[in-house]
């Protein structure tokens, strides 16, 4: 990026990319608005919504009280009645406080009413480990979104995807859970400025090509998988790294086509391994590509423990680059 001139894809942080998506969509469509704790004057506890209150005012950027059932429930109600709310919970974990609103009302209201109402809204969910924020502020809960039909589930792993997927989410007529990784807010990357830049749902991104092993990774695990791939390339082991980007809808075609070539698959997630999204992906891979597989589908995920608060312990719980490297190295030999 040349300094001083605006190129098509300047470098931007993941958080700023989200901010840009919000600003662009609010400019484009008056009915889009935001609510959440401290999203207004403060610009969000992570600074993601900075400047939006000044541009759009208190009516469209609403600070709420400490009331998660209201934040999500009111968004659902507002969405049914003609506006397009983008609600923020300060931590994805807080979905569990508004579980009835997220997993029942937001997900099912349309179906329960025979398709006569729709719920066009986005719930922004800062997810994952951040370094020291503990068991109820660090979880990766995207699997839940897959188990309650009616939701779409998005998990961007790059600044460009953060922007393009959020814009698509806001334009989608369905309710969308948007898991933005708070540990990646400062990760920088190229981000298109075209206001019509949209990343479609249900199209996985092949982050790196390779013939020995298909690695399916999401969120923070994408850069770690790419690091592992770089390390293994030195030994002649070529990983194909696929980032599904959306879990609902899930692009199994791309994944299965890859596994049919490589004959092996490793699924990596930051979430607790047991009953996570990776279990679903692994189960589907072997359903669809069993006879092409040379080895079992392996999974890496967080240990079966809550996330401990200590930033040191926390990293022992989620998969590290080294663990991905080691698992991949072992799996290609099986």
């Amino acid at each position, binding site marked *: 990026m040349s300094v001083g001139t605006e190129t098509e894809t300047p470098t931007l942080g993941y958080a700023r990319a989200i901010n840009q998506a919000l600003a662009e969509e609010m400019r484009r469509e008056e*009915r889009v*608005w935001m609510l959440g704790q401290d999203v207004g004057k403060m610009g969000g506890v992570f600074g993601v919504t900075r400047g939006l209150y000044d541009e759009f005012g208190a*009516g*469209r950027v609403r600070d*709420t*009280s400490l*009331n*998660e*059932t*209201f934040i*999500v*429930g*009111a*968004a*659902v*109600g*507002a*969405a*049914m*009645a*003609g*506006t397009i*709310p983008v609600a923020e919970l300060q931590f994805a974990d807080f979905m569990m406080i508004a579980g*009835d*609103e997220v997993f*029942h*009302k937001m997900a099912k*209201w*349309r*179906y*329960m*009413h*025979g*398709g*006569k*109402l*729709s719920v*066009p809204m986005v719930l922004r969910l800062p997810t994952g480990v951040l370094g020291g924020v503990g068991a109820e502020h660090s979880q990766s809960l995207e699997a839940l979104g897959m188990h309650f*039909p*009616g939701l*779409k589930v998005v998990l961007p792993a790059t600044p460009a995807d953060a922007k393009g997927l959020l814009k698509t989410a806001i334009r*989608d*007529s*369905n309710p969308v859970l948007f898991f933005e990784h708070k540990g990646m807010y400062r990760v920088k990357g190229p981000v298109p400025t075209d206001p019509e830049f949209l990343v479609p749902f249900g199209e996985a991104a092949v982050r790196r090509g390779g013939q020995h092993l298909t690695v399916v990774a999401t969120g923070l695990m994408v850069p770690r998988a790419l690091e592992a791939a770089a390390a293994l390339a030195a030994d002649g082991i070529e990983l194909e790294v696929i980032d599904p980007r959306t879990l609902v809808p899930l692009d199994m075609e791309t994944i299965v086509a890859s596994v049919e070539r490589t004959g092996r698959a490793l699924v990596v997630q930051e979430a607790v391994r047991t009953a996570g999204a990776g279990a679903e992906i692994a189960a589907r891979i072997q359903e669809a590509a069993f006879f092409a597989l040379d080895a079992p589908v392996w999974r890496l995920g967080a240990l079966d423990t809550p996330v401990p608060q200590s930033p040191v312990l926390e990293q022992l719980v989620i998969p590290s680059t080294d663990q991905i490297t080691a698992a991949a190295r072992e799996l290609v030999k099986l």
Partner: protein
Amino acid sequence: MSTRTKRGPDAGGEIGDSELLDLYRNVSRIRALELLLNRYIEEHGFGGFWHPGLGQEGIQAGAVSALRSDDYLFYAHRGLGYALAKGMSPVTLLADLFGRTPGSVGGKGGGTVHFVDPEIGVMGQGGTVGSSFVLGAGVGISAQMLGTDKVVAIFFGDGSSARGTFHEAALTASVWKLPLVWICENNGWAISVPIAEQSPTENIADRAAAYGVPGVIVDGQDTLAVRAATEEAVARARAGEGPTLIEAKTLRVRGHFEGDKQAYREDLVDGLDVPRDPLKILRERVPAETADRIDEEARAEADAALEEVLAMPTGGEDVVTQGVWV
């Protein structure tokens, strides 16, 4: 903000003759459906839950009569009265109750019966009672943001008032002056738990002060009093002055659901007798012959609706997966 009490038949505001007849007609129509369903279930049983609203018709019809047809409605689980009064047809409502495809939700909504009609603001129902507090507040936000002066009426029971969603919605709704009217049908019971074990205060409306909104107590057997109280609250909401909490005192005539043995209950009501019957109380304002004719029409309408509905199809695999996503 202090709690006011309105009681007795004379508490009702002005009402024109034709409006009075409309109101009587709706109370009578709801009653006809209640009695019909009672009979049907006794004879045939029922899959699912039916929560009879017998005796609470006056609240439902009275409050809804204070709404404009484009105002929003979140009804409670006790009967079909709310939506009938708002303008949905008994055929649709019964079709929904019996899970038939031509109903408004096509057999998909429920637990307690759901129905929906966005055209006239009937916004549906959740299976978890009290979920409408936050949803309704959100509808109010949209109504405001879109520059309409529509009001959102939210019905709920005394039991449901204990939900945390009430607290979370009420605080912000009051600060934001959302156009809401909360109508609590206090029938003294949450299934088997009497009001004294659920509430530390005598009245649910006593909680209004905590939220800085008016609390109004009204005799729920007196349809006109309910209507008048709601009119005032609606006017307040429409004027941008925020929510009102109305508590209509009534009693649960039947079991929580049809079939409930009510062994836990000492003040059992006998059969289908309605103490201080809202239909009879309102009838005093209507010429007897007119009332008889309306009652007769209401019964005929209900009977015909049920017959029509029982002949309707329940869907199959073609409909079951539709409507999950847009």
